[in-house]
């Protein structure tokens, strides 16, 4: 079935199977492989992208549900060769190790700060409840988000 949407500011139209998950559409059809897949139960958040500016888990959205919507992936965050302040904050604070959860973490974090620009540490931790990381122990991720909120 026909699907028209905007991905990282560019309009696209594709013919897709109804069961195609948004994450597979982004990775396999739109060829944007920055969004990762870490589970099959909406638990890990690795696949987090923005749908109309809000974080969603793209493994739990059918591509056809995104028809007419605006999707932003990790590839759409940096602009003009400059990393987004959240990406920069992650780097400055060593908030990533293997980097597999990172695109989802960054997308979740930017959406979170939009809704809560001046969070406490506890609020940041609650705000990340849907994203799993196995490397960092979260300590530096939380620090990075608090730093991004400051700047």
């Amino acid at each position, binding site marked *: 079935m026909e699907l028209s949407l905007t991905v990282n500011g560019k309009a696209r139209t594709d013919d897709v199977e109804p069961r195609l998950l948004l994450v597979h559409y982004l990775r396999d059809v739109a060829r944007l492989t920055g969004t990762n897949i*870490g589970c099959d139960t909406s638990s890990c958040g690795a696949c987090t992208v923005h749908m109309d500016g809000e974080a969603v888990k793209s493994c739990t959205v059918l591509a056809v549900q995104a028809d007419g919507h605006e999707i932003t992936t990790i590839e759409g965050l940096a602009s003009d060769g400059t990393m987004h302040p959240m990406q920069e904050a992650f780097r400055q604070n060593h908030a990533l190790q293997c980097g597999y959860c990172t695109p989802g973490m960054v997308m979740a974090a930017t959406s979170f700060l939009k809704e809560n620009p001046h969070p406490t540490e506890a609020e940041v931790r609650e705000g990340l409840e849907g994203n799993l990381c*196995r*490397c960092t122990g979260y300590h530096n991720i939380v620090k990075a988000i608090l730093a991004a909120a400051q700047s």
Partner: protein
Amino acid sequence: MTTTEAPPEERVFGQRLLRKEDPELLTGEARFVADVDVHGALYIALVRSTLAHARIVSIDVGPALEVPGVTAVFTGADLEQEWAGPLPCAWPVTEDMKAPTHLPLAVGKVCYTGDAVAVVVAESEYQARDGAEAVVVEYEPLPPVVDLGDAVSDRVVIHEDLGTNKSYTWELSPDAEAVDRAFAEATHRVHGHYIQQRLIPAAMEPRGVVVIPQPFGGEYTVISATQIPHILKVMLALTSGISETSIRVIAPAVGGGFGSKLDVYAEELLSLVLARRLKRPIRWIETRSEGTQATIQGRGQIQDIELAADADGRITAIRVKLLADMGAYLQLVTPGVPLLGAFLYAGVYDVPAYSFSCTSVFTNLTPTDAYRGAGRPEATYAIERAIDQLALEVGVDPAEIRRRNYIKPDQFPYNSVAGLVYDSGNYVGSLEKALDLSGYGELRKEQERRREQNDPVQLGIGLSTYMEMCGLAPSRVLASLRYVAGGWEAATVRLLPTGKVQVVTGTSPHGQGHETSWSQIAADRLGVSPDDVEVLHGDTAVSPYGLDSYGSRSLAVGGVAVAIATDRVIEKARQIAAHQLEAAEEDLEFTAGTFRVKGSPEKSMPLGAVAFEAFTAHNLPDGMEPNLEASSHFDPPNFTFPFGTHVCVVEIDTETGGVRLRGYTAVDDCGNQVNPLIVEGQVHGGVVQGVAQALFEEASYDSQGNLLTSTLVDYLVPAASEFPSLTTGTTVTPSPTNLLGVKGVGEAGTIGAAPAVINAVCDALSPYGIHDIDMPATPERVWTAIQEAAR
């Protein structure tokens, strides 16, 4: 050995440099195996056993072949002739160890839920999965062996040809009589019985492999989410019969491993032989609910530890008996995992008599293998729990019992009763720093107040002082343990014509930041900017020699190899510079990347200029070969022994049994630190994984061997919301056994954390008379313990 300050800031070594790896990972540019798009690839999906133990009666592949896009389906019998050898186990720990034949696709019977029985090949991933759903397998169920005691009894023998479920018994008992005597004479004896539950490693990136065949024009390129491209290459050659010269293995960006990607897996072999057979690229990407069963699990041990102590609580002997769960088959290093712990049950304590014995058995469960720490967290847990029990028995504070038993700073190098030589340490220093940082005295007062007030929320404070054996490993020691490979690591350092530096390493990072740290090691010695150093790794065509990354070995072996190779490059450069400056080599000094003639500083030559001269070869000393390049194959003379003390503070809601981690202080000593930022990150992540074992995670099976925690909904990998910020501190006690003075830190946090947490939980509950609780300390377990204590 004294505690010293970290190297000064002006050196590149020791600086908190931001990681070179980050930009590509932060922007989505990095290529993980699932991101590798190969034109014309076929996708495979596996049909996996739904029973733990059964004979395969029939496999009907017909319905799958009718699924659109499915091009072929193979059963174990169809592929049996493809294998030159079974899936490898590289660690036959005893001469008479029993090892079942383990084929990538089961033939005849299945031995765990998840055991692969057929493979479906299709034009797309979705079609391959539809095909796998359509295969009909008829089984004749056999009684499953799930419980370790049941396995030992041989009531049901899983691998009939072996005649028993026991794989091996391994003993380390230097002086059994001394142990018996010490127990006979002891004033205090404590016995701990601990269960190391099975854990699912759950690296965030599932496994995956892509194989690109060029059978006529070249080689098989195997791109795999692996920690061990070099070992994998050898094993692929041995099991497929393809010449090692025709296999190239690439580890692309790899999303964490923790031991789970330190293995040779059925899917890697299947992808290779199917690429050979079908002459098309093959692609396989694991799903999470598949990986929880088909990727190795960690731990799986039942431990009995006994301590004998004198009237003051000084330990006079330790006796350990293990029962270890191998799972259904032996994977790459499955049998060796308990041995990695065997040497550490005396922990950081000065213990004169010791005996250890481990019996390992097969069960109808997913194979176990190395998981972060591999044997060492289990050992540390046992001794650190047991010494808390001894503190109770003797009636002293857990900190005090440790002080009485520590190996003293002046005893290093220390010959341990288990036969190791500990390189350096200052355990009491780490304890005092951790107590200080955590506010131990104040915490004890708060605990007292809450106890007096009968507060429904009780406070628990737990300590652990760990020591681990890492930097795996001196090859001769591995030989004595019957491991079939060595433990060296390789590095090549070369200067390019423009003066930039290329480091080639045999380590294979998957999150550890070797590109940054190895750059720092080389740049520090060469006097160049770390930005001018590139680090190549993870491709057997680029770094032909290597033994890969696991067991906190990369820095202490591979990083040291980089340093040695760098020094060799400098030595050659010195000869060229001396020649060009017309000075004697011994008259040159090399500082800040420039050779200078002593006493005539105007006569100098920067390294970049030397590199260019070496490249043009216009004016080299007679007989000298062009270019500046050197290699090292460093075989460490000893293990390294990092250590630390962790203090965990928990609050227990005694009404619900809920345990909340309130604070955590980790003081770690990994010797000299190349990059403290990365060290802290390793500690944070390690601690959280250790806490996860203590409070959250368990691979739970029902009595039929079905995995009940097959998704991340049921297997509780904790999130940020479950943790407070962590407090870290370090002491620096360099290792005298390598020229960098480094030790390794990848597993430290995990090793220290689980006992600290459970000691804290037991400490909180001790007024109830509760002194032990199984991991994970779930709310129900805690509540039940309180109820039973009240009865």
